[in-house]
């Protein structure tokens, strides 16, 4: 009996020694991880597709979205509460009235940085992978383009922001950056745009990816911003002109409504869009905030006559609705696309009004949010050009460009007064009418120096004190979210905000 134990003991001891001679670090090759990623062409290409996946998540958030960053801040002259003027939550009101605090949802920039990290990974690893020139150009060009695009949002919304150009790969001090001066961000954007256009030289990939055209649209937008909002000087007008001159496919569809139709995606007017697809990714984004809830609409009308979804949180202000209706009286085909009303629904509310431009597909009776998000379309090309001519004091040429957009809208070139103030007013009006709901007019009004006319600091009946108080710092920016500050000691709050 004792011998058996001795033998067993020896066997156990030997076996356990044997086990330790082998490497205990097992690398799971069946799983994609940091030791076997970035080895071949498909790693780089699928990671580049990942950039657009990230960008789509970033743009399709509800409150951290182009609408909250780039339009709602035009204020209560343009926007108001939804659901018969009863509904708007605190986060929404804070953005609209400029009573922002660091706890408001829209102050969260993290989705943009997640997209930037994806770009940084592609930019770091693609050059070392042996692959076709076409695919290298695709990966590098798109990564530079989207990184520039994201930093352009960050710089306009928050000003000084952390500048990160390397992927996050560890947890040391390096991942706790301070905010870089906005001038450094602008330089990065400019150099990224230039790098993107070195790699992407044609429009073959279509509007869901970087093309020569949409890179030039971004460049024109950026350069006009540098001139109009960042006071960076005349050289940016020259750069904007060069970029606009390089745009090749500028077209306007005759029928304004077909530009936004879910049945007419990737149409000739779209320069850059984010693809949504039923079965792959659907999201109401901020568009869902414009549509009434089904319980408030008679069942016979739901998703037949009146689109329904969750709850209507926003409707244009009465003043803006009046503005759109006056335009309709002049023959503007855009009003019916941007705004709809229905009287006599016979349910809880007699008149149902809603912003109407972006809609999912509700042909089945259920709203399916598979609409693309349009980020640049060629109407902007003409408006950018008109704005450029206005800054260059070539007012007649500015009107000529504006009238291209006007002609599609009204059926005729309605602008004739070429005095500077009339041209400026026409630019403002046409931006508001053409791009309502698209999340960019706030920036256009800043560039044109008109934002304080639209949302001055004053008491607004029904809302209270609202608007941009010019005696305070950085009112056109947003505060940085408290959660971002709590996670990173290195971040300071924007002066003028708490």
């Amino acid at each position, binding site marked *: 009996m004792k011998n058996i134990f001795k033998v067993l003991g020896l066997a156990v001891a030997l076996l356990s020694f044997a086990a330790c001679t082998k490497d205990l670090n097992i690398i799971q090759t069946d799983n994609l991880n940091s030791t076997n990623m970035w080895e071949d062409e498909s790693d780089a290409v699928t990671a580049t597709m*990942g950039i657009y996946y990230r960008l789509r998540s970033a743009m399709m958030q509800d409150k951290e979205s182009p609408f909250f960053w780039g339009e709602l801040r035009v204020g209560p002259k343009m926007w108001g509460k939804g659901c018969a003027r009863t509904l708007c939550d605190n986060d929404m009101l804070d953005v609209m009235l400029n009573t922002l605090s660091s706890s408001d949802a829209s102050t969260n920039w993290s989705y943009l940085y997640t997209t930037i990290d994806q770009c940084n990974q592609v930019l770091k690893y693609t050059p070392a992978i042996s692959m076709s020139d076409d695919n290298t150009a695709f990966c590098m060009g798109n990564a530079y383009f989207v990184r520039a695009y994201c930093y352009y949002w960050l710089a306009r919304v928050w000003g000084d922001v952390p500048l990160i150009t390397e992927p996050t790969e560890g947890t040391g001090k390096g991942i706790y950056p301070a905010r870089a001066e906005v001038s450094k961000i602008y330089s990065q954007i400019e150099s990224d745009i230039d790098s993107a256009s070195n790699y992407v030289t044609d429009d073959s990939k279509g509007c869901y990816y970087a093309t020569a055209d949409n890179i030039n649209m971004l460049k024109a937008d950026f350069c006009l911003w540098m001139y109009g909002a960042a006071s960076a000087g005349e050289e940016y007008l020259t750069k904007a002109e060069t970029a606009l001159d390089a745009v090749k496919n500028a077209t306007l569809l005759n029928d304004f409504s077909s530009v936004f139709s879910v049945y007419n995606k990737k149409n000739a007017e779209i320069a850059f869009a984010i693809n949504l697809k039923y079965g792959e990714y659907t999201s109401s984004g901020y568009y869902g905030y414009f549509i009434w809830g089904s319980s408030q609409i008679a069942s016979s009308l739901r998703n037949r006559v009146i689109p329904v979804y969750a709850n209507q949180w926003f409707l244009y202000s009465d003043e803006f609705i009046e503005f759109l209706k006056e335009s309709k009286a002049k023959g503007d085909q855009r009003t019916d696309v941007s705004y709809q009303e229905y009287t006599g629904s016979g349910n809880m509310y007699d008149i149902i009004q809603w912003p109407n431009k972006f809609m999912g597909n509700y042909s089945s009776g259920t709203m399916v949010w598979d609409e693309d998000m349009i980020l640049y379309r060629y109407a902007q090309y003409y408006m950018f050009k008109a704005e450029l001519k206005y800054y260059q004091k070539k007012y007649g040429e500015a009107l000529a460009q504006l009238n291209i957009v006007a002609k599609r809208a009204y059926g005729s070139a309605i602008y004739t007064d070429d005095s500077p103030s009339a041209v400026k007013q026409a630019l403002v009006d046409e931006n508001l009418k053409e791009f309502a709901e698209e999340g960019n007019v706030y920036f256009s009004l800043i560039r044109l120096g008109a934002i304080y006319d639209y949302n001055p600091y004053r008491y607004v009946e029904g809302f209270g004190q609202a608007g941009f108080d010019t005696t305070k710092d950085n009112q056109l920016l947003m505060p940085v979210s408290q959660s971002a500050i709590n996670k990173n000691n290195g971040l300071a709050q924007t002066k003028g905000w708490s």
Partner: protein
Amino acid sequence: MKLRLSYGLTGNSDIGYYDAYGSYTTTNLYDGQSVTLASSLPNLALTWETTRQADAGLDFGFFGGRIQGSVDGYTKVTDNLLFDVTLPDTSGYGSATQNVGSVMFYGAELELHTVNVSTKDFTWKTDFTYSFNKNVVLSLPDEYEYTDIDGNEAWRIGGYTLGESGYRFGGIAVGESLGRIYGYKTSHIIETEADADAALYDTRSHGYRRSDGLSIAGRKDIGDYEWCNREGSSKTADGDEEINSEDMFCLGNVMPTSTGGINNTFAYKNLSLSVYLDYALGHSVYNYQYSRCMQASLGNCNWNLVYDADKCWKQEGDETDLARFTPNDADGGNRNYSRTSNINVQKGDYLCLRDVTLAYALPKKMLKKANIAGLTISVSGNTLGYLTAVEGISPESGSIGTSTGMYDYTSTSSKHFNNTPPTRKILFGIKLTF
């Protein structure tokens, strides 16, 4: 009497499969094409968490074994503590498992076993345990180092920073304990319109007033809480004090300082009864369920009202700790209940009737004829009730290092309000031996 000394070293490698090498997901699509996304951050430097523990104990017995017991003291130091650290939101990742320094856990334990009565037919024994536990963070990695407002070197992960003074507190910090809960602290209930006008601007308040029906952000109404303002916190742009997310106070700790139990066993002839009570003292519970009930909001689920709704402030002169009750406090009201505060962070002290067992062993004489050696019939109940101030949910405490407890401490405002509490059970048993 006996002296015991021990020292030990143990390791813990309780991490996910891909925490060291990071991972990518390939299940998503864009424009119909497959997508590769990084899903967790690689950390090749990840290593074992090690715990060094030293114990010293004394066993004793008096009166011929009628009183027996032991006293133990322990300190254990955990190095390379494995911890899921929240990463900055510019990193592209939410959190990553890291070795974040060392923590010392220390405390003392006392055990007493007494035989109170021992006669031929009746015995009564008592077992009593008590343990006292504390912890303190000893070190954190260098990326969390900063200079505090007195110019001293300090280390802290997360927490809060006061805008005016730059003072930092909360989170996890060297020299402080793990598991603290931070939130707003009530000062008093505003009783008049004049007081409401004079109240501090509150960034979380919608400013709804019943008198004019308007929502003006930051404003207060009568019946609302006035919150305590923290000295050195940021002010409004006009230089006035305001209530904002920096006005956080330590409201408690998820870890109890004292735990233990008392077991009494009574035996009379063949009948025996044992009653076991256990207790935990010194911890707090963020009662999110209570908070949701008081918010009276309709979300994805409907929340029943609590009886406390009846105790809410209604008019001037009401003696109550509870602010006015309002429908949808979170979206339409002034957020009296829609924030972590001393109203919903409740003292978790409890005494639990954990186990009661009544057993009867049938007399052997009766069983002998049936060739049965023994037959015991018993009935017992588990977790029968709590004596506690926590309303609605279980007061059981959190645990350090994992989230397996009822409440964890990984966030300063963890709200694991819907965890399954320990079940209440009644068991009937028959034990038969041949």
